[in-house]
């Protein structure tokens, strides 16, 4: 909360002389672009994420076991790297068009110009294929722990499998779907790298311009607050739409859905459908990176610093994940057990860190942390006359704080959609049997929340690994992570040199994905409490 207060402070510290100019020539267009981008990415990620989640949950087809977890892979690649890779691949002088020209017998790039990826449509596609896993993970968790009984009941009542999807499964998955899409939209709002690179002027790009190009931090904070209002309105509309619905399961032990085997052709069709997003969002850019890295081995090789960067990355990401999960659990549990506006608003407010552009949040955290550090240093000087320097900033703890604030929304969202499916009657039963609220939480809720917990943990961990603006601004001296290394190369326009670091992000990001896949419950006995 404090960084947001800082943000408001920064915003009102400046004057508002910039606004006539902004309203006249910047904001209308930026807002319109932002809206189109959000709509496109929202619809596309919702469709891809939900569709693939249903396919791997409800049907048996060749390769299903692999795609169950492979569908999460695009998460591991930072959006701006995917944008770079695609521009390289699809550029008129890149491999794809060169090959096309060869096929068609053209000899100059001027004879055949395909639509440029540097466009709104290109930006929507790139972001969607990288971000859909947020929806997939959330919805899939829901389908896996779905009351198969409900789907079965609808089937006995004569619904087809697709009917069961539209009439039962999809409505049940709605909280997860909307949280997944909300996360995607926040990621989209936050994206500077890809949209700026592909030439799309969004509100976030305007904020950034105002701060960096005109050194007007106050003006940037003012635009950020407007953006924030925009986001809070979106969240409120979504909540309001769900106000009368309850999604809790029956207290019967849920059974796993029995996937139905598909015929050869329909099976292949399903296989194509789930492989497309993995190919587009992960395999193509990753293969391209690997190829680029391999082609340039004689230039680079693996630097000894890389291992250090890997351990730095894992360390701060783990710490960030743990603390975001802990806080997220506290917030969402409070929202469940302490009825009232206060705890609910706390849950809403936890979304804020994700909604503020990363650069702006980083500045907010910077001001708070250093203020705290300076006070601490003064105290230390008073008490023992030692000079302790800047403790939190100097130790890297500022990164953990920033990650926690930034990704708390994922934890809260994940737990909320998990809690929404635990009927209140279970709490009642536990209490009647004499369990206190702590015991109810640890012995009843947490085991039931495990899939949601695992899903949130993965998303946060991979996000921490990829996070750039706060990491750059708040890290101590001599401290590099994989993301900052990659950025350093990308800044020189030699992001292929950073491809090794990018591949490491993917590899280190893969481990948790596999763990997640294994922890996705497969049998009913996983739910034995």
């Amino acid at each position, binding site marked *: 909360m*404090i960084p947001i207060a800082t943000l408001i402070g920064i915003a009102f510290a400046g004057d508002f002389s910039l606004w006539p*100019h902004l309203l*006249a*020539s910047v904001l209308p267009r930026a807002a319109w672009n932002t809206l189109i981008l959000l709509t496109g990415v929202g619809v596309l990620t919702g469709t891809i994420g939900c569709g693939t989640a249903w396919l791997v949950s409800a049907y048996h087809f060749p390769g299903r076991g692999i795609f169950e977890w492979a569908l999460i892979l695009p998460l591991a690649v930072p959006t701006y790297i995917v944008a770079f890779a695609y*521009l*390289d691949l699809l*550029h*008129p*002088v890149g491999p794809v068009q060169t090959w096309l020209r060869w096929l068609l017998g053209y000899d100059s*790039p*001027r004879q055949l*110009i395909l639509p*440029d990826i540097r*466009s709104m449509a290109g930006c929507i596609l790139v972001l969607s294929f990288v971000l859909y896993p947020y929806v997939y993970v959330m919805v899939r968790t829901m389908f896996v722990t779905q009351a198969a009984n409900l789907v079965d009941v609808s089937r006995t009542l004569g619904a087809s499998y697709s009917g069961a999807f539209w009439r039962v499964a999809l409505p049940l998955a709605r909280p997860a779907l909307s949280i997944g899409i909300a996360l995607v939209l926040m990621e989209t709002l936050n994206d500077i790298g890809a949209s*700026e690179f*592909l*030439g799309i*002027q969004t509100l976030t790009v305007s904020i950034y*311009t105002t*701060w*960096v*190009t*005109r*050194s007007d*931090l106050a003006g940037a904070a003012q635009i950020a607050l407007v953006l924030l209002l925009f986001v809070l309105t979106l969240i409120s509309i979504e909540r309001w739409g769900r106000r009368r619905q309850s999604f809790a399961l029956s207290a019967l032990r849920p059974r796993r859905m029995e996937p139905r085997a598909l015929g050869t052709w329909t099976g292949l069709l399903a296989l194509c459908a789930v492989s497309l997003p993995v190919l587009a969002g992960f395999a193509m850019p990753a293969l391209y990176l690997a190829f*680029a890295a391999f*082609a340039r081995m004689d*230039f680079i090789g693996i630097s000894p610093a890389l291992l250090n960067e890997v351990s730095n990355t894992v360390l701060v990401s783990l710490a960030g994940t743990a*603390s975001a999960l802990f806080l997220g659990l506290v917030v969402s549990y409070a929202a469940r057990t302490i009825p009232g506006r206060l705890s609910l608003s706390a849950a809403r407010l936890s979304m804020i860190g994700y909604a503020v552009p990363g*650069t702006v949040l*980083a*500045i907010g955290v*910077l*001001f708070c942390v250093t*203020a705290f550090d*300076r006070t601490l240093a003064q105290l230390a000087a008073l008490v023992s006359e030692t000079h*302790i*320097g*800047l*403790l*939190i900033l*100097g*130790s890297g*703890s500022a990164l*953990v*704080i920033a990650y*926690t604030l930034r990704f708390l929304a994922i934890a809260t969202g994940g737990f909320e959609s998990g809690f929404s499916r635990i009927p209140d009657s279970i709490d009642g039963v536990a209490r009647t049997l004499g369990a206190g609220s702590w015991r109810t939480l640890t012995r009843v809720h947490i085991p039931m929340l495990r899939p949601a917990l695992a899903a949130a943990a993965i998303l946060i961990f991979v996000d921490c690994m990829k996070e750039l*603006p706060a990491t*750059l*601004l708040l890290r101590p*001296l*001599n401290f590099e992570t994989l993301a*900052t*290394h990659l*950025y350093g190369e990308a*800044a*020189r*326009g*030699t992001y292929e*040199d950073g491809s090794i670091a990018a591949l490491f992000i993917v590899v280190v990001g893969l481990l948790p994905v596999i763990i997640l896949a294994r922890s996705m419950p497969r049998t009913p006995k996983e739910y034995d409490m």
Partner: protein
Amino acid sequence: MPINRVVPSVILGLGLFIGLGTAVIAAELNLYTTREPGLIKPLIESFEASTGTKINALYLKDGLAERVASEGTGSPADVLMTVDFGRLIDLVEKGLTQKVKSEALESAIPPQLRDADGNWFALSSRARVLYAAKDLDLKSFNYEDLAAPEWKGKVCIRSGQHPYNTALFADYIAHYGVEKTQAWLEGVKANLARKAGGGDRDVARDIMAGICEIGIANSYYVGLMASGKGGPDQEQWAQAIKVILPTFKDGGTQVNVSGASIAKHAPNKAEGIAFLEYLASPEAQKIYAEAGYEYPVRAGVAVDPIIAAFGELKVDDKPLVEIAGFRKEASELAEKVGFDN
């Protein structure tokens, strides 16, 4: 902030501090920079080898001023190094630098490339040049011509909000005033072959692809591409273009600088000044010229042959400080004409 996070970080911090405190016997210096690690590392290594002073670096992107300002008197930063004189002057205006008196720096760096009081020193410079298609019949070029109707649909350039372009537009304002600059920007915008965006190298790549015929980009990228340091693809991009040093009709080529200051609360001021003096030395200036393909600021240090091939650089005569004053107008004008839309 919950207490459970404060305690470990305090312990960790104390441990680190005690560890560092006992380890510091050799001289050290802390460098905050927004320059790319790949370019700065050779300079750091060479300085460390020759002096034995260890350099701790923090590579930032944006927010250098905010970071140093918020660290206050406890800031470990000794040397602040950045690109774009607008940003150098920003640091001075925010009171984050201190005056430095150094014979070595004053004799090495021409007066127009440093602050009179020694608050900042330029260490290398780069020109905003014209990349043109190889087969184009073009011998010279004025920045004013970018808006000429004959180039309609033939111009490529990065975002109008990038500091490299902001500085060029600000220089235009210094020459012609705000109104004429707006008309010029509208003309350039109308001539764009594609959206303003991407990086400077994309200008060369897009010229190779036939998307545009001319574009404005920085001089050193030509060296980075042509030398093969950016890989075989980029070498081809560089082969598709020729470079012309454009000028203002009543002036010279627009030049920007990279430079450094001593931080106001530098704990290791002496080492910081020694590092700046090293960066202005013939040896380091040679690294700037050869590894980064920049123009050295020190007279008598040769530019790289790739860059020398562009011809004689005639630097525009508008003072950097005056141009920096027009940065904000330049950025707002670019927004006003919808340069990036």
